[in-house]
């Protein structure tokens, strides 16, 4: 029924999705994997436009609209993705994910009225696609706003878990009703759309900013599922393969990311850090006092060290100090000081965030050391410089069962000889808790914006 060439195109596209995604799992082949997937996608898109239907039956208007739509989407998408700062990448992923979800939802909306007489199968695809696509859309937009900083606090209504579950039941219930009685309610499909959108919002809003990457990964797989339902509706192999692939790969990736944070998925979705609605245990205030260190003292300390480890965190990204820190690394290395970067799996706002940030500054890939490996080296490290990182070096994760971050593996910087922490102020980090590392006798605080502090440090070192 379908043009045989188009069938082959869809087969090729499906292959490129699988092979491309596989290649993206390996640093050596990752970039090419992305390109291969893009090539397959382009083939599928234009193949569909020209070969899906006899072109003589398609009006110029429709063809024009399709090309116009693609042109607009390409220009806006390309410009946005190219121009935006590296640190904004995570929220962009969420935004584009939302676009895909919205697309799937719209397809459901449009196809609903064409398919009311077509039986259970098609209607099931449409309803599921509509619900999942809408949830993914609104959820992704909320995630975008949270990562953007526009929506800062986790808005937690009382008994929000109960509330969310009720809304979920309503959504599914209404969806089921629409499935059985498509024409019973006038405009029912639009109501379902609205309810699903609402659920997406309620689902994402209570989740804390640090858990966003996990949620984005989950919403990513949702959009994949939505795409798959479209594939079943149209018996389209490319959509089916792409959709299911992303649905399952995305789900597994979500679970893997949870494991890296040592928090089960249920915890992320249904609970605040480490507990249900319970407020984080109030601590009496950590005993002890903090020590200051001046930039010139630190310069001396580092200059005469043999081994320095830098722990980058979100503060480095915010201050956009990645280039300066590379300069610091270079100067120290010139003086015979070995410099490495300790990368915690959830440092920053996304796994790999620090890697991307430092790569932008041309820091060599082999200087970045994963947590398990570097933890064994802190005992022989002279100076650890913590820049804008907080929770990932908080010993409470090991020592304090009442702490919201208890159980999360951390960078064990307290084993080093000297620890210097650079922060803007004594304000709490993302998890909102005290950090007893700061009161450790071996620790000194260096307050100030990362970029200006590091620049001064580099200048000092240059004069030595």
């Amino acid at each position: 029924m379908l043009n045989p060439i188009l069938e082959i195109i869809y087969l090729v596209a499906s292959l490129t999705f699988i092979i491309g995604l596989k290649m993206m799992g390996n640093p050596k082949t990752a970039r090419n994997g992305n390109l291969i997937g893009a090539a397959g996608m382009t083939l599928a898109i234009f193949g569909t436009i020209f070969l899906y239907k006899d072109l003589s039956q398609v009006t110029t208007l429709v063809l024009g609209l399709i090309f116009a739509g693609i042109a607009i989407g390409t220009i806006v998408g390309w410009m946005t993705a190219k121009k935006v700062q590296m640190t904004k990448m995570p929220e962009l992923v969420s935004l584009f994910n939302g676009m895909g979800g919205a697309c799937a939802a719209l397809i459901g909306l449009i196809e609903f009225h064409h398919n009311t007489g077509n039986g259970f199968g098609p209607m099931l695809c449409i309803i599921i696609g509509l619900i999942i696509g809408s949830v993914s859309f609104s959820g992704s937009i909320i995630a975008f706003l949270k990562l953007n900083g526009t929506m800062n606090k986790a808005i937690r209504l009382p008994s929000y878990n109960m509330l969310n579950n009720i809304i979920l039941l309503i959504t599914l219930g209404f969806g089921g009703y629409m499935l059985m009685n498509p024409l019973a309610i006038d405009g029912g499909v639009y109501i379902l759309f609205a309810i699903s959108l609402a659920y997406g919002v309620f689902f994402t809003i209570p989740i804390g900013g640090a858990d966003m990457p996990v949620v984005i990964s989950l919403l990513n797989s949702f959009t994949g599922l939505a795409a798959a339902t479209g594939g079943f509706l149209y018996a389209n192999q490319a959509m089916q393969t792409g959709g299911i692939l992303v649905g399952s790969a995305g789900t597994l990736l979500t679970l893997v990311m949870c494991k890296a944070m040592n928090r089960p998925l249920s915890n992320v979705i249904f609970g605040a850090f480490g507990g249900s609605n319970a407020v984080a245990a109030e601590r009496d205030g950590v005993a002890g006092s903090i020590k200051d260190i001046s930039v010139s003292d630190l310069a001396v300390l580092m200059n005469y060290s043999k081994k320095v480890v830098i722990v980058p965190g979100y503060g480095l990204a915010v201050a956009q100090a990645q280039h300066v820190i590379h300069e610091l690394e270079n100067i120290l290395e010139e003086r015979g000081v070995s410099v490495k970067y300790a990368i915690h799996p959830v440092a920053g706002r996304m796994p790999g965030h620090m890697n991307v940030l430092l790569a932008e500054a041309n820091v060599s890939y082999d200087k970045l050391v994963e947590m398990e490996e570097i933890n064994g080296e802190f005992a022989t490290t002279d100076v650890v410089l913590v820049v804008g990182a907080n929770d990932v070096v908080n010993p409470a994760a090991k020592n304090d069962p009442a702490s919201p971050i208890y159980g999360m593996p951390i960078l064990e910087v307290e084993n080093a000889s000297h620890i210097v922490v650079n922060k803007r102020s004594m304000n709490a980090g993302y998890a909102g808790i005290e950090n007893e590392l700061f009161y450790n006798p071996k620790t000194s605080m260096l307050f100030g914006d990362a970029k200006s502090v590091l620049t001064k440090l580099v200048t000092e070192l240059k004069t030595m």
Partner: protein
Amino acid sequence: MNEILSFVAENRQMLYIILLSIFVGVEIIGNVPTVLHTPLMSGANAIHGVVIVGAIIVMLNCEIENTAGLVLGFLAVILGTLNVVGGFVVTDRMLEMFKKKK
């Protein structure tokens, strides 16, 4: 019960595809280094942009009198394209770090 059995029998191939695709998806993610989690998520994001093919099909099938359908379909095409183009470009930028060294 009978309905389920006949459903399975009739849609055998589709069920094979679903099961195999799920396995492929799971296999792909095994043994991925942490540093690649985010680019991989971005790449997967781009691939589910294949939903745009559905939007195109909707438009191709749309009657010219159906203004609402045309408008929504047009919007869907834009959104789908944003997902695809934005997705692949963002992924490419994230993967730039692997350009020079290895």
